[in-house]
């Protein structure tokens, strides 16, 4: 394995205060970010994800320890040198007036261009490549004011790409985007990590998406950071620990957080495919406990040749219903 693109050694992050003692958010962090990997930084609000990213990006001084960028001490790099190795995307995509997408992405060439910021033919190629890599060819010539949040964020990512830095740090870049745009962005970042051999660290609250797309997760809690493959972390119960809160638990089987409710009546659902999956979710949502064993209440998926039907067996009586809502209503009216 090659040397990591970004390394933190015994890093302590937080805020310095003049009189009352420093606010320490995390200490003794040892982190390695490899090229070619998409790493998700997850953790509850206020745990210090943004502070960590700002410290790694050199926008904030560490309270102790070092950040190494390509093996060189981050503190010794000039802003321009750092910008050649490390690019940044923040939550809010700025919307300067009278600028089009191309001009925005071209700003990413600043660490490489002369004092006037003039672009050479090579610079233009890098900009065009970055725009194409994020799939923004069609919006590059539009004024930014005309674009949606998702499109602007895409261009901001292209701008970071055009910087041709090995390390890309993203601080909740998808927070304002709708679900398809988030899926698209994560997929894009994953592709970029592979194809352009970038080391990408993204902080996000989108647990489900991070579990599905990141090569590694860094789980940040007050105790520090635990890293590993998403699945290993789930199976080791780390996700539950990181986000532990009253009334919520992480269900390793469904890969989602569930509300802690008093165990309800047990129901067995017989069936396969999407219908059974959503029936189970509906029952869980309404406070029933699912079981695989035979139970007093059973819901069976049936086909009557025309469409799907749900058959309920309840205390020996059975009835048939066409929709999930009808099943829920029937169960409730039976006092189950």
């Amino acid at each position: 394995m090659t040397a990591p693109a970004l390394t933190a050694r015994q890093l302590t992050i937080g805020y310095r205060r003049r009189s009352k003692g420093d606010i320490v958010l995390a200490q003794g962090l040892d982190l390695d970010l490899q090229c070619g990997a998409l790493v998700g930084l997850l953790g509850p609000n206020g745990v210090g994800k943004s502070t960590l990213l700002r410290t790694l990006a050199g926008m904030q001084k560490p309270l102790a320890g070092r950040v190494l960028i390509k093996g060189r001490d981050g503190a010794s790099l000039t802003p321009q040198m750092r910008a050649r190795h490390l690019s940044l995307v923040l939550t809010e995509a700025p919307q300067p007036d009278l600028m089009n997408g191309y001009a925005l992405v071209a700003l990413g060439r600043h660490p490489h261009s002369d004092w006037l910021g003039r672009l050479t033919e090579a610079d233009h190629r890098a900009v065009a490549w970055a725009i194409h890599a994020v799939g923004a060819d069609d919006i590059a010539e539009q004024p930014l004011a005309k674009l949606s949040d998702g499109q602007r964020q895409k261009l901001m990512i292209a701008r970071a790409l055009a910087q041709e830095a090995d390390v890309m740090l993203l601080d909740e870049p998808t927070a304002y985007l709708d679900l398809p745009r988030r899926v698209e962005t994560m997929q894009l970042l994953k592709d970029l990590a592979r194809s352009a051999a970038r080391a990408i660290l993204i902080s996000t609250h989108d647990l489900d998406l991070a579990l599905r797309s990141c090569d590694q997760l860094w789980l940040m809690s007050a105790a520090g950071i635990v890293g590993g493959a998403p699945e290993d972390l789930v199976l080791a119960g780390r996700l539950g620990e990181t986000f532990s809160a009253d009334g919520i638990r992480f269900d390793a089987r469904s890969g989602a957080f569930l509300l802690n409710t008093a165990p309800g009546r047990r129901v067995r659902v017989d069936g396969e495919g999407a219908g059974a999956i959503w029936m189970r979710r509906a029952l869980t949502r309404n406070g029933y406990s699912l079981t695989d064993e035979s139970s007093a209440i059973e819901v069976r998926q049936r086909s009557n040749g025309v469409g799907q039907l749900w058959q309920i067996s309840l205390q020996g009586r059975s009835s048939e219903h066409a929709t999930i809502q009808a099943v829920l209503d029937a169960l409730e009216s039976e006092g189950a």
Partner: protein
Amino acid sequence: MSQLAGKAVHHAPASKRIGARKASHRRPASWASRQFSGARPLVLILLLTLLGALLLLSLALGSAVIPLDQIVNVLLSGEADKPAWTNIVLKFRLPKTMTATLAGMALGVSGLLMQTWFRNPLAEPFVLGVSSGASLGVALVVLTAGAGGGALLAGLGLAGDLLLTAAAGLGAAVTMGLVLLVAARIQSSVTLLILGLMFGYLVAALVSLLLYFALPERIQAYINWTFGSFSGVTGAQLPLLAIIVLAGLLLAAALVKPLNALLLGEDYARSLGVDLKPTRIGIVLATALLVSAVTAFCGPIAFIGIAVPHLCRALLASADHRLLLPGTCLAGACVALCASIIAELPGNNLVLPLNVVTALLGAPVVMLVVLRAMRGAP
């Protein structure tokens, strides 16, 4: 969801391959030419032509009628047919014209610097409090001077003007030093903006206090200064004004790249390799130099600083400082020359206060331009 994500994986490479073929045909240079479409250099050339015409007009117009060819003669050979004409052009009209040109450039560019740095369209050159400092200096001299001062001002002779210039310059320089000191320590531009505004209020209150206790004729002298004028600068003072303004403009020119990056905000600018502290100090120093010089020599000239950058953005349809900086220079000079010409239109002996002209005639024009530009945009 997993199916949705899976589909995205399978489709992405295919669409990319198609796109890649297309992109290889597309010349990146065509994008570049879009970025600087031909209209913009044309606008700059038009502004330059307009500036040339206004310079000549400003030299040609006045209470004495001098033929245009005679003025050209004076400019080229330093001699007109009548010595009086030579005198009028070289001693009065040329300094006034050059002062208006320099002041317009200085105010336009410093307005641009402030608006970009604070990312606020309402920012103007005076938000740093430099002109407030100058006005305090002038108020102190005019309103509190002893008996000697009274006599001096009653005559309103050359010495009085010099004293006012010195007082305004000192006030502006002291404020500039304070602002630089604060800018070197405080990182947040918003904090500096608020400090500058509060300093302005503080000084305005002090000036009001001085006015409240001052004699009416002295108040008049102070108010005359606040009207602003391009006519007070003598040929001997002109080089000083020119050197300070040129220094400020050169400094601003050296900052165009970080200024472009600052359009994305300070965090992004830093991530693009901008060293914020020297940039901040450079912007504040350039603005303070430009504004101090203009305020000291011409008084607090309002409107040009806030309006010209907007005018230029609308005309050039660009946020790129490589275009906006020369644009604001030229447009600022044009606006200042227009105001100067209109304030002293021949045919009446009345010389209107400069600040009245800049705002009364300029504001509607800028409103029109900005509204039209907005209608063109979404």
